[in-house]
């Protein structure tokens, strides 16, 4: 049986009582309260000019928004307390685990997926929901879901580079742009259709990945990050300024939607078709990425992330391994670029800013670097939540930034940590049986 990690309401109350009954805990809590009070005072000071004062330089008026002090004080106090509580809990858990010498447990989702009794029903349930989704809800909902599915693929692609191979690529959006523009331009000049452009966009992006990767991949991690960031910006600036080539900031419009054996489709139908297309692509991506991760190549990527020098000393050609990771990551971005162009029927450079790379990075980091299930969950949370909670969508980018910081500090392995394949050997060596997960 699966228990939700032993939490019932009664447990919660008694745990709360226990928390206060112990003298040591009381001391810790008092200290934490005092500290949080100081933290909140500091933040009131820190945010004073920007949160409280707002000037209108044209009308020469000043508005003092004193109410904001209150929000800042409460907010920082609560966050500081929660952070402290989390760290204390983490420390205690670690200590307990060390004492009991029991290995860390897998997440509930992996637990479920690993049980044959749950694995297949779950998969069937998910695919069932995915299949009827556009018919249960409006086309508008299906459209939002299509966007989320696109980000799942983007996330899985970037996950190869950042999560598995440990190469921080901040210019991932460039490959996305290359895919989108290759469809837009090929269609504009040569009337190439969607299905022909799809592989071309992907391969072109992969090619650019190799071309960029070749010189920069011998750089150390942090330099690689900033060079890829620069590369992403260069691509965007070129698209913006080279009017003859890319039509500049006004972009390219009237890009055809994907065709389906020449059948005429209404807008609604086209959107639903797009949705199913993305479902198919997501399944393909999961299949391919899963196999890659658990292959000779995938192991080499992981080893590269863990220790570059040891990896080389074990006979792995690190340049080649990095290049394949880069190219494969870029490939998915290129594919989604083509789909993006077809979905919106319009591309311009403004869609491909650094913030786009940051969103995809946030998806990978939130979900769990190296974890396929995690990345899917991350994409769904980060793309769907701001869509459905319209009130929050203003704070979207603020939250993404905060997520990147908070995840690194509190849960670097992500919501759902990646798992490694396990093997069981029955007695002698020849009976090695493989057991898959994810």
């Amino acid at each position, binding site marked *: 049986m699966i228990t939700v990690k032993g939490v019932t309401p009664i447990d919660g109350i008694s745990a709360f009582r226990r928390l206060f009954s112990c003298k040591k805990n009381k001391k810790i809590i008092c200290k934490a309260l005092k500290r949080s009070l100081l933290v909140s005072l500091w933040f009131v000071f820190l945010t004073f000019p920007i949160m409280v004062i707002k000037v209108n330089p044209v009308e020469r008026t000043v508005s003092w928004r004193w109410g904001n002090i209150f929000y800042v004080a409460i907010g920082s106090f609560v966050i500081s307390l929660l952070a402290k509580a989390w760290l204390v809990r983490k420390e205690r858990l670690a200590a307990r685990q060390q004492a009991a010498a029991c290995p860390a447990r897998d997440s509930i989702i992996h637990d479920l997926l690993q049980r044959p009794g749950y694995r297949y029903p779950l998969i069937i349930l998910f695919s069932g929901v995915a299949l009827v989704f556009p018919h249960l809800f409006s086309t508008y909902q299906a459209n939002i879901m299509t966007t989320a599915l696109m980000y799942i693929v983007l996330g899985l692609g970037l996950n190869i580079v950042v999560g598995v191979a440990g190469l921080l690529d901040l210019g991932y959006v460039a490959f996305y742009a290359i895919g989108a523009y290759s469809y837009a331009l090929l269609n504009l000049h040569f009337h190439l259709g969607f299905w022909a452009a799809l592989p071309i966009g992907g391969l072109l992006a992969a090619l650019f990945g190799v071309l960029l990767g070749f010189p920069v991949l011998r750089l150390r991690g942090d330099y690689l990050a900033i060079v890829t960031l620069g590369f992403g910006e260069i691509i965007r600036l070129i698209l913006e300024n080279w009017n003859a080539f890319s039509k500049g900031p006004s972009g390219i419009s009237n890009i055809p939607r994907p065709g389906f054996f020449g059948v005429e489709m209404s807008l609604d139908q086209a959107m639903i078709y797009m949705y199913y297309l993305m479902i198919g692509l997501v399944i393909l991506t999961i299949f391919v990425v899963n196999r890659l991760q658990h292959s000779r190549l995938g192991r080499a990527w992981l080893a590269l992330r863990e220790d570059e020098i040891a990896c080389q000393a*074990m006979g792995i050609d690190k340049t080649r391994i990095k290049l394949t990771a880069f190219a494969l990551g870029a490939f998915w971005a290129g594919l989604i670029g083509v789909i993006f162009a077809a979905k919106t029927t319009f591309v311009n450079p403004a869609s491909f800013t650094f913030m786009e790379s940051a969103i995809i990075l946030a998806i990978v980091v939130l979900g769990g670097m190296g974890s396929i299930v995690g990345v899917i969950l991350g994409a769904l949370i980060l793309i769907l939540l701001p869509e459905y909670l319209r009130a929050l969508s203003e704070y979207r980018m603020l939250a993404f930034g905060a997520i990147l910081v908070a995840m690194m500090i509190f849960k670097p392995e992500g919501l759902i940590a990646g798992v490694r394949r396990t093997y069981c050997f029955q007695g002698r060596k020849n009976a090695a049986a493989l057991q898959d997960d994810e």
Partner: protein
Amino acid sequence: MMNKRMNKPILDVSGLTMDFGGIRALDHLDFDVQDKEIVALIGPNGAGKTTLFNCLTGIYRPSSGDIQLVCPETGEQTRLNDLKPNKITEKGMARTFQNIRLFSRMTVLENVMIGRHCRTRSLILGAILRDRRTREEEQETVNKSYEILEKIGLAGQVNEFAGNLSYGAQRRLEIGRALATEPFLLLLDEPAAGMNPQETAVLVALIRQIRDEGHAILLIEHDMKLVMTLSDRIVVMDYGEKIAQGTPAQIRTNREVIKAYLGEDVG
């Protein structure tokens, strides 16, 4: 344990020099390793032993001198000076690290499987399609890696994360990982460092077994008892120079060596 090909070394180092800025870490070093031989490299701290390892394995590029590796089976001779570390491993020389460098968030088995990387071929398409050849190769990788784990006594912990192993087990896993690359020469950088006597005893037996299975071993070690019981030959370094070489018995009585260790009891 001397065999007939005594005068045909598998590793031949001559005039090896390494400068860092103005500091000469290795000074015209000459030595060789024969097939199926255990050679120990000793010397006080800072004598340049690890620098030598880094030069041999391509992590540093030596300033001058010559490193030749000869495959005992094919007789193929390679100059290692300008090769990348991974090429050198492919040629048949693998190493361990003084400060353990395992892939700690990968499993024990996977660590060894990484060593098989340069002896296997499957690529992107193979990984995606998982065709017959890839499956067979993967199965072989698993089997051979498991065999190695049995040999180093870690078969019970295949699915454990490498970072969770005990210290001695981690050192043995480093050896196992290097063995998986099928080297004819194995470089061990302080394999017994930090081990307790029981662990050291297991290690000595393991190194002997590895040699008996046909590998030559070059090792850096501070544990003199281990060096004296295990090695066929000893090379002594000080300040980047070779100050002596010979059998354990010869080294025990060598004045230069005793002086370098400042009267330390090497018996």
